[in-house]
């Protein structure tokens, strides 16, 4: 009887979930293979013009780490028709903003413009795609900028190299074993010829998606897209060498010394690729562990026992099988042994006990909230549309991905915990203050 009530409750919850505001969009391909996604929202006179390329740090060659991101910098500087710095200058001159990001799997560029400047955005993105200029001047300036970015974000920050120290121990073959920012030595070695080769291989319309959201008219936008992008030819088919990471057989335990005051403990487990059933289960497992103040790790480690000042669990959301990290930063005077025991017992609980219905519902509510809030801005929508298409092959996940989470049961989460949260499947890293 009780079970029946729970069932009814979850069905009602299900029907009221995520159905309220659909993100309408149109998508099509140009004859050169460029995928185009359009979303119209006329409430504010701004437009987001973005292009995403299916190339990230995992497509880099050994010895050329950091290249995809370095390329992103170079690709934002100059084209046949745009002088050095024009990408930035024209956008800001138009009252817009622009930026770009690179991750393991893709590179993303966007401009956020007043909507009467839509054409400027299309011109810039098409110049980047077809007429980009790579020369020594641009490469040398950006080399210093990228190295400075590495110093700023990684080398000069406490815990700033944590992710790369995890990656290098988690992966032996797969290119996820190096960080997106790359190594200083490899950044120093990149040549203009490398850029040319990379551009010709990956910066082709058939490897890209153009995602436009905001105050646009659909037909007029289609016409302009054809005008700016249609005249160029398709690029060669991209052959990707997919490297399979062999299964980890034994736990890796190691220590890193850093300029920090508080030690930290990180446990990184191999997990399946984004979009798989087990991925969703592991994603929810992380939310149960560490999303919100009532989550298990926050409540136990930070609040009740005060073993940690900070605790978290997240995954890399990677296209190929990746890793999921649980970590804690120890409170002053707490040893990593104590902290580790407490973290381990939360991990063991995930394996040994079914998550109670109410706690499970809480996480679904949090997911729903995050899902809806992610669509608050047109910049966010343009990015999500591009990403869903490029990495997941299904743009409409922007409306339906919630269902994937709703399909996960507490039993699935426990099964995933048993399957992936094994000692032999992880890297444990002790992050310690440098002895003085």
């Amino acid at each position: 009887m009780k079970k029946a009530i729970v069932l009814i409750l979850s069905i009602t919850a299900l029907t009221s979930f995520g159905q309220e505001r659909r993100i309408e969009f149109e998508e099509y391909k140009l004859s050169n293979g460029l995928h185009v996604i359009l979303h119209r929202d006329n409430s504010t006179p701004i437009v987001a013009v973005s292009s995403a390329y299916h190339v990230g740090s995992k497509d880099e060659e050994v010895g050329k780490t950091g290249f995809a991101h370095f390329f992103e910098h170079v690709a934002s500087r100059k084209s046949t028709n745009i002088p050095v710095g024009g990408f930035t200058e024209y956008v800001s001159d138009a009252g817009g903003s622009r930026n770009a990001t690179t991750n393991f799997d893709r590179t993303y560029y966007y401009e956020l413009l007043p909507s009467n400047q839509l054409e400027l955005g299309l011109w810039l993105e098409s110049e980047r795609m077809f007429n980009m200029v790579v020369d020594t001047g641009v490469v040398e300036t950006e080399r210093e900028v990228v190295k400075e970015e590495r110093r700023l974000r990684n080398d000069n920050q406490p815990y700033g190299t944590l992710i790369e120290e995890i990656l290098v121990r988690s992966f032996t073959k797969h290119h996820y074993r190096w960080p997106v920012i790359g190594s200083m030595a490899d950044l120093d070695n990149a040549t203009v010829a490398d850029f040319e080769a990379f551009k010709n291989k990956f910066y082709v319309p058939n490897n890209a998606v153009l995602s436009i959201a905001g105050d646009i008219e659909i037909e007029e936008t289609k016409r302009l897209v054809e005008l700016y992008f249609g005249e160029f030819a398709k690029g060669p088919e991209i052959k990707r060498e997919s490297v399979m990471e062999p299964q980890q057989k034994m736990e890796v335990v190691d220590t890193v010394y850093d300029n920090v005051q508080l030690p930290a403990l990180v446990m990184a487990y191999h997990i399946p690729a984004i979009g798989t059933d087990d991925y969703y289960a592991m994603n929810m497992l992380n939310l149960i562990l560490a999303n919100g103040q009532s989550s298990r790790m926050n409540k136990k480690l930070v609040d009740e026992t005060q073993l940690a000042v900070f605790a978290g669990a997240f995954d890399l959301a990677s296209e190929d099988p990746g890793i999921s990290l649980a970590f804690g930063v120890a409170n002053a005077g707490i040893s990593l042994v104590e902290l580790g025991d407490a973290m381990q017992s939360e991990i063991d609980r995930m394996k040994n006990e079914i998550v109670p219905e109410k706690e499970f519902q809480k996480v679904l509510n949090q997911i729903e909230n995050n899902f809806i809030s992610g669509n608050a801005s047109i910049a966010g929508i343009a990015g999500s549309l591009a990403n869903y298409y490029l990495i997941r092959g299904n743009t409409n996940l922007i409306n339906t991905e919630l269902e994937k989470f709703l399909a996960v049961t507490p039993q699935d989460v426990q099964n995933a915990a048993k399957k992936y949260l094994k000692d032999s499947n992880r890297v444990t890293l002790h992050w310690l203050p440098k002895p003085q």
Partner: protein
Amino acid sequence: MKNTYILIALLFLSFSAFSQLDRSKKPEAAPAKEIKIGDYQKFELKNGLKVIVVENKKIPRVAFSLILDRDPLVEGDKVGYLSMVGQLMRSGTTNRTKSQLDEEVDFIGASLSASSSSIFGSSLTKHQNKLLDLMTDVLYNPSFPEDELDKIKKQTVSGLKSNQDDPNAISGNVRSRLLYGSNHPYGEIQLEEHVENISVQDIKDYYKTYFKPNIAYLAIVGDITVKDAKKIAKARFGKWERGDVPTVKYDQPSAPEKNIVALVNRSNSVQTVLNVNYPIDLKPGSPESIQARVMNQVLGGGSASRLFLNIRGDKGFTYGAYSSISSDELVGNFNASASVRTEVTDSSTVEFLYEMGRIGSEDVEEGELQQAKNVIIGGFGRSLERPQTIASFAISQERYNLDENYYNNYVKNIQAVTSQEVKEIANTYIKPENAFIVAVGKTSEFADKMAQFGEVKHYDIYGNEVDPSLAKLPEGLTAESVLNKYLDAVGGKENLAKLNSVKMNMEASMMGQTMQMEASKMAPNKSVMEVKMGGNVMQKIVFDGNKGKASGMAGTKMIEGDDALDLALTSSIFEEAVYLEKEMEIRLAGVETIEGNDAYGVEVISPSGKSVTRYYDSESGFLVRVTNTVDGPQGAMTLSTDFSDYVEYDGYFFPTKLKQPMNAQMKMDISVTEVIINAELPADLFKIE
């Protein structure tokens, strides 16, 4: 007829689609759309609470922001207690424990947070009633649990520890101290000892005094009708009782009369966090603030501004260089900043000061000015996508008594700023000669190069001025660690223990004549030293382990008492081992540059009470200088002996070049010609007759 028009329009459309695009030209903008500021409703409850409602149905969420408008406060010896107020309020009510609050907030996927001057809650609209239950419970019934405060204090201490390593946090501390002084609400720095002073009573007192509706704004933003919002405001916030709230006045901090270069050492830095800054008097909403906004955009407001284009784009010194000018009712500030490579700290400063000077001396070109305006107007337009922006406009309008049309006219007023006004406002507010130039980084690499910008002062990570030579010492370094490194460098403690005797032969030339010297030492502390010139013994000093004797051309003298104690120490083969063994009084005495390298000074108080400072190379660990102060005819003077060119003899390292002072002006160069380890020394060598 109408159809014909459509046909022509279609033809035109398809024609343009096939026409060749001129890619060499930047596309023209379509006619600009008007920037419309969304509507809002404003009303006041009987208790004085001012409510602002912005309706926006784009996503089914609603946010409630309660904001207190009070004067900034000085926290004295309890710095940081204000930052605990909100967290403690959110940590338990008379109805709910912290864990229950957390559980209920998370269950609806909401967020609920509080600070000393705000409470903020947001959730999907369908959960708004529950959210308001929780939010008002925190507002009206906080229970201030003692144990929760203890946790917050513990976390605060841990956070402060992390900040000790964060160059940006260090820079922030030092800057606030320098700009505003420690008796100003913006100039206080939180220290570990402050945390202990904070009690539940402090927080309760604050809550009772300041959480009053008559100094508060409530902004309701999102998927809600004005009618519902009114109902909610009355029902949930109408019975909140008003009360008198004190106001405070402060002295106006001012910019320094001349540039001050403030250096903070962080020896493991690979970058310098560089800030050029000073306090200013600029009020929010004033006509000057609009002109200053445009001027700053030209100078360093964004990635198309001069600082960025120069220091990142042109020089590649940094990942980003920016400036900001902030208006504030109490005191604002100007700040130009970048994290730059250590070795270009001085070059970057040159560029910052150059651009700051240029904006006040040269007219801004019309195109550049228009571009800056476009950036500001574009940003303004984009910000209107967020309904919270409309609410914050409404609150600012009330708070700073802005003109009713301040935001409606904002774009027009930005457009109206002239090149002349930019230059004038820069002359008032941009002060390349009255700034604090704050650099947090590896100061040994750039300290001397920074003197060109102004008086160089050194600070610790909390903004206290420190002795520059000590400031360069790396954190964690101790006198003991310096000595241990030295002992390791010259052979290692274990090896040194096996050392029984050392005999050194030396040569020096003085006034055209050659001198030979022989020095022998035997463990634990016997020594003999003989100086010969032309076959004659000029001087001989012997120490037999207890007493000493000096003889030479001037006669013979026994060495006893205090002097014998000192000689007993210097007769040890490596006297550093004795300092550590006997736990003698030693302390770090700063850093000196010797032969182009940093050397750490260790001051040693000899058994007789004399002070000697010995310098050890920061890299090799070798002893490179011994300095002592002696009484001379013109008063005390410092004499230094330098040691260099260390050479290995049977696993032990000895300097082979010495520079010994003869008097204040003259030094004698001594070269070591031979070192014999554990030689059989004649038994009577150290004998004193």
